[in-house]
Each structure stands twice: as structure tokens, then as C-alpha cells.
């Protein structure tokens, strides 16, 4: 078991998700000897996403990705909806012709297809990709520097100058090596999604789009039953992706199963007519690290760096994750290439450059901006429940024409608010909200 493969690599990337692929591709393209090890049967078999592809992150890695990547629709319209439990919804739509001008800013993708493509790019760039192989631990020298990985296979110890951990939200390798703790239930969201197939024409009609135009709908409100979470509905070419995710701790408390929660979203009158008749072709669930800035572990050490979900790089407020994964993967790889070119060792002191570059990028700046948001929302569940419901009921009252004068209606609305929350409570909420999102 412990015998070592004679071949040594410049870098080993653990995991073939967006972060691992971005790192492996960047390294291989620069001519480094790269081994990428994936636990699943094929690259992408363990991956789940909504899924929106943010062009900027991939563009920085593969500038001409649009020529060959399997893309579904480019986004021209974003809707932000607040859904109550089962009756009404309020929301805002933003649609702009600016989003219709190529090169497009965002696309919907189907990850099964996209990941296959991305992995092929990694192989074509020259990386050796090995699947169905679990990394069971990290090899260290006497000084404690990581010098390679141990796999479950015979003769499965492999040496490398540096190991990039891109092994996903649970990062079992990172955990076992003591590089990070297990993810806390308050820092993880459990998300489920379905892909529902509908004829292209039906999607175009229901969402008022044509050609490769698409719509994304991000959803919050008491539809999640007081649990902290959001839902989404995205348009693909001839399918819709619909999903919902909530913080694990809340789901445990409410004993809610993900399937039940998704059914509730699908039954809501705001959603039901949009997805009606869709034939379900895929059902998937995954954990999302949503702890944000305050939950980030140590990101580098002697001979290793951590990227993507395994380090918790997700901006839960803006529903961004894969772009952070790709960017951290790329920046880690660029740091490795720089050190390699300069002939410097992969010590913690030298790999600190990775963290410094991240601090300088949108990744850390955005995570820092919303550092307090996850805990604030978790501690104040009424923010995403009571207020949206109040808004919906107020609209209901004002827009119902029934012979009651408008001032009386306003008094009724105010009375309802006071009943729910004291004036000081409202001021406190506003302050907390401002602090967390400023």
C-alpha cells in the first residue's frame, strides 16, 4: 500500500470540480507536470450546481471558452421574488438590452455537460486525470511539509512539490490532515434541485425570451418556512432548473426534508404555472458552504493550498460560488507557477502570496463585505420571513378595492406592523441589516 509511484509531479490537484479544474488547467497550460485525482466515476459525477456560469471567472482561465463550452442561455433578465408560504409574491424584475450584447456576462449551464467539457480542456492542456481514486491522506516529511498524497490504490503514494486541495465542501482530505475542522451545520446549506424538461417554445413563451436569451429568478421569503435559505428557477435551452437550499441547522430543527421543501416551492402559485408539464430528468442534492468570511479556514501551509468549496469560498448573499471556486483555483495555480518559475520552495511563507492575491481580488473583498450577514440572518429569521409577508399583506390591503378609504387601510397596515414588531425592534432590524450589508 505504502509503496510510492516512481513518477513525481510538480503539483497534485485533489478534486475535479470548478476549482480543481481551474487549477489543473492553469498549471498544465504553463507546462507543469500535473496530476489531478477525482474520487467520482468521472469528472463531474459528484458535482451539483444551480447552475449559473459567470463569464469573467472562466474567461480569465480560458478566454475563448464561448467557442466550445456547452452553454444553455445567456441571462437578459433577473427577477428577485419574495414568496409567502402559499398565496402571493412580490418582486422586482431587471431586464436590460445591455445584457443582450455579446460577449455575454452570465449563462445558464447544465453541469453534467459543462464539467465533461471542462475536464476535456484540462486533459488537452496536458494534465494527467485519474478518476475513481480516493485520496486517503497527505504525505508529510519529518518537518511536517506536505510532499504528496496517499491513495487507496496499490502503489498509490504519489509525490509532488505542492498539493492543491479542491476536494469540495466536506474536504475529507483537509479534515483528516487536520487542516480544517468539519463544517458546522450552521455554516452549511443543504440544496436540492431538479431539471424539468419542457419544449423550447414553451420556455420562450412563459419567460418572454427568444434565441439564446434566458431568465433567472432568485427567491426568498417565508416559502422556506422560517428557515434561512433561498430558492431559484433558471431557464436552460429546453429545460428549467429549480431548486431550494436552507441552512442545515434550520432544516434539522424543523425536521424538514429537502424533497418536501422543494415540493412546496413547486406548488406555490408563483412557480407552478411556470414549470407546469415539465418532465423531470435529474434530481440532485448537495451541501453548500455558506459560513462566509468568518468560517474560512487556514488557506495554505507548507506544501499545500486550499481552494473552492473545500475552503468555503461561497458568497451566499449573491448566490455566487463557482466563480469564486474557479478564481481561487486559478490564483492558487498562478502562485504555484510563479514560485516554480522563480525556483522558490513551496513553503508556507512563500505560499502566503496566494492569500495576499486573494485579499486583493473580489473574492475576499466580497466575503469581507458580507462577513456578518450569515450569522445576522441566522439569528434573525424574521428578516426573511416576517418582513416579506408584511409587504405582501400590505400590498394585498392597498390593492383590494372594497369601499374602504385609503387612510383607514394605511392605519390597518401600521397596526398590523406594530402587532408584529415594536418600533424599536424595527429600528434595530434596520440597523442590523445596514451593518451586515453596508
Amino acid at each position, binding site marked *: 500500500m505504502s509503496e510510492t509511484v516512481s513518477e513525481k509531479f510538480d503539483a497534485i490537484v485533489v478534486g475535479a470540480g470548478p476549482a480543481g479544474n481551474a487549477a489543473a488547467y492553469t498549471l498544465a497550460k504553463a507546462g507543469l507536470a500535473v496530476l489531478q485525482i477525482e474520487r467520482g466515476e468521472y469528472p463531474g459525477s459528484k458535482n451539483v450546481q444551480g447552475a449559473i456560469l459567470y463569464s469573467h471567472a472562466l474567461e480569465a482561465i480560458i478566454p475563448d471558452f464561448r467557442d466550445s463550452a456547452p452553454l444553455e442561455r445567456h441571462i437578459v433578465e433577473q427577477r428577485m421574488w419574495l414568496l409567502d408560504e402559499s398565496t402571493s409574491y412580490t418582486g422586482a424584475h431587471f431586464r436590460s438590452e445591455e445584457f443582450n450584447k455579446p460577449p455575454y456576462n452570465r449563462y445558464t449551464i447544465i453541469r453534467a455537460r459543462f464539467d465533461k467539457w471542462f475536464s476535456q480542456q484540462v486533459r488537452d492542456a496536458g494534465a494527467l*486525470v485519474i478518476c475513481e481514486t480516493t485520496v486517503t491522506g497527505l504525505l508529510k516529511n519529518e518537518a511536517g511539509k506536505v510532499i504528496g498524497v496517499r491513495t487507496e*490504490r496499490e502503489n498509490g503514494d504519489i509525490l509532488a512539490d505542492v498539493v492543491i486541495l479542491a476536494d469540495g465542501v466536506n474536504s475529507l482530505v483537509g479534515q483528516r490532515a487536520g487542516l480544517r475542522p468539519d463544517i458546522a451545520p450552521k455554516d452549511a446549506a443543504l440544496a436540492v434541485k431538479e431539471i424539468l424538461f419542457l419544449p423550447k417554445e414553451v420556455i420562450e413563451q412563459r419567460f418572454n425570451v427568444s434565441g439564446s436569451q434566458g431568465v433567472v429568478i432568485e427567491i426568498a421569503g417565508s416559502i422556506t418556512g422560517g428557515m434561512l435559505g433561498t430558492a431559484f428557477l433558471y431557464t436552460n435551452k429546453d429545460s428549467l432548473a429549480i431548486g431550494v437550499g436552507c441552512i442545515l441547522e434550520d432544516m434539522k430543527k424543523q425536521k424538514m426534508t429537502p424533497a418536501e421543501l422543494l415540493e412546496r416551492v413547486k406548488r406555490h402559485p408563483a412557480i407552478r404555472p411556470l414549470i407546469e408539464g415539465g418532465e423531470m430528468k435529474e434530481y440532485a442534492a448537495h451541501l453548500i458552504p455558506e459560513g462566509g468570511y468568518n468560517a474560512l479556514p487556514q488557506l495554505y501551509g507548507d506544501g499545500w493550498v486550499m481552494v473552492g468549496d473545500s475552503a468555503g469560498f461561497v458568497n451566499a448573499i449573491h448566490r455566487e460560488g463557482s466563480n469564486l471556486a474557479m478564481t481561487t483555483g486559478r490564483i492558487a495555480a498562478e502562485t504555484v507557477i510563479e514560485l516554480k518559475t522563480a525556483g522558490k520552495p513551496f513553503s508556507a511563507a512563500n505560499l502566503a502570496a496566494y492569500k495576499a492575491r486573494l485579499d486583493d481580488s473580489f473574492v475576499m473583498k466580497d466575503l469581507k463585505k458580507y462577513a456578518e450577514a450569515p450569522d445576522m440572518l441566522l439569528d434573525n429569521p424574521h428578516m426573511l420571513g416576517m418582513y416579506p409577508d408584511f409587504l405582501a399583506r400590505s400590498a394585498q390591503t392597498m390593492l383590494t378595492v372594497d369601499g374602504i378609504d385609503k387612510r383607514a387601510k394605511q392605519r390597518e397596515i401600521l397596526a398590523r406592523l406594530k402587532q408584529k414588531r415594536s418600533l424599536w425592534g424595527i429600528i434595530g432590524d434596520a440597523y442590523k441589516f445596514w451593518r451586515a450589508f453596508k
Partner: protein
Amino acid sequence: MHIVVCIKQVPDSAQIRVHPVTNTIMRQGVPAIINPFDLFALEEALRLKDKYGARVTVMSMGPAQAEEAMKKALSFGANDAILVSDKIFAGADTLATSYALAAAIRKLDETRPVDIVFTGKQTIDGDTAQVGPGLAIRLNAQLLTYVSKIRGIDAATREIVVERRAEGGVQVLASKMPCVVTMLEGSNEMRFATMPDMFRAARFDVQHWNRDAAGIEDIKQVGLKGSPTVVAKVFAPSPKAVKAEMIPGETPAAQCTALVDRLFAEHPKLAADLLKHLDSLNHSPEAAR
């Protein structure tokens, strides 16, 4: 000794998922795998490689993406891999498939004589079990089907002895080589590839043989043209109207007793046999100890 193992890439029916709420089948993203029955054939061939130093070539007829299956077979330790692939082969039934594969094996035999051709008992997508026998006829080789074990090979007399599962028992058969062997499921367990073999397979250049390379001249015998099979209709069997019934009872034990009583009442022979069996157990030497 040169062994050819014929494999097929099939959709992994075990991974066709069913939605927890609607109970509908979800085909999207179902990965392609090596036909599970073929893995028993491959492992048996690899054991002969370990034991007699045989050379193992895997062969498949299929589209370009079947190369993944070939690489997987290589990772287990096969020496070489040939993918017989040509647009003209599309839509082949078992008759046309065995024709193309037999031609390719004959071509291979010219440079390195083939002693045994292994296949799985059948595939999990077609379930016909016809390609193996088809190869034997076309190659004019002995046919050994439903083989559960290779007892041994005598290189001097070119004789192979196998165990064949037949109705009511096991036949021990001796045959001359060359021969075609179709392996039964459960006859062995596929090995776990070593890391060096994983590297070798990932870097291996799988040979692609088109119809010319495979020595196929008569294109009317391959692909859709060479396939007399017509699929008239594909349908899902309608669910049987079986009613569920609750067995009443105060405790689980009482429910169990009631259930056993019901089963014995409906199947008196089963009851009698079971009682006889229990009786014999009570009087066996082991029970006495």
C-alpha cells in the same frame, strides 16, 4: 497464449435514478460503464494472464466514446485495446455486431494468433446473449457458454477445461482451443487497479480500427444494413394489480405469527417441508452438541 476479451459499453442501469416524489426515471447524466457481465470475462482472462503469462487484448465495437471503457479495461491490466469503430457500424444488431467483431478478431489473429475469446454471458442493455455464440460460429471455434470457472489449460495439448453451469448442476467440459468462452456472473471478483496501471491506462493510445482496418469488405453485413432485427415497439410493462394488506396484531411478534399462519395455510407443502427440515436439524449431530 493470446486472449481477446470482447466488451461493450452500456448505460449504467443501476444509476438510473428514480425521483423520490414522482417515482419517475431520470436518465439524464447516467454514466456509461463496461457491461458488468463482461467484467467477469475480463477478470478471468487477467487471471490466465497472471497464471500462464497470457497476453490480453480487449476489443469492442462501438462509438468513439467507448474509448473510456477500453481505458478502464486497460487500467485493470489488459495489455492492449482495440476499438472497432466506424460510422457504418451504427444500428447493428447481434448478427451484424458478431460479423464485425469476428472480422476484427480474424485480422488480429493474422499477426498474433488468438487462442481464447472471452465475452460476458450477455449485456445488460440487450440481454440477448447472442454475440458470443455468433462469434464462435463465425470464427469456426468451439463454444463454451455459461462458464463459471476455468479449471485449467494445457498449453501442450491446447486443451481447456471449464466448469459450465447447466440446469440442475455443473458440467465439466474439456475443449480444444481456439474457443469462445462466455462467462457467468459472480464467477470472480474484479481486481482493484493499481496506481501505476491507472497511469498507464490514462496515457494509453487505444487503437481505433475502422472497417478497412478490421478487414471488412462486405458492408451489407454490418451496421443497420446487416441487421435483420426490427424493433416493433418499446413499452413499459403495466403495473400488476396487487393489493397490499395489513396484518393486524397487538405486537410485532403476534403480527409475525399471524403472517406465518397465513403463509402456511396458503402453501401447505411449504409448511410440511419446513417442519421436516427443522425436525432434521434438531436431530442432527450439530444440534446434539
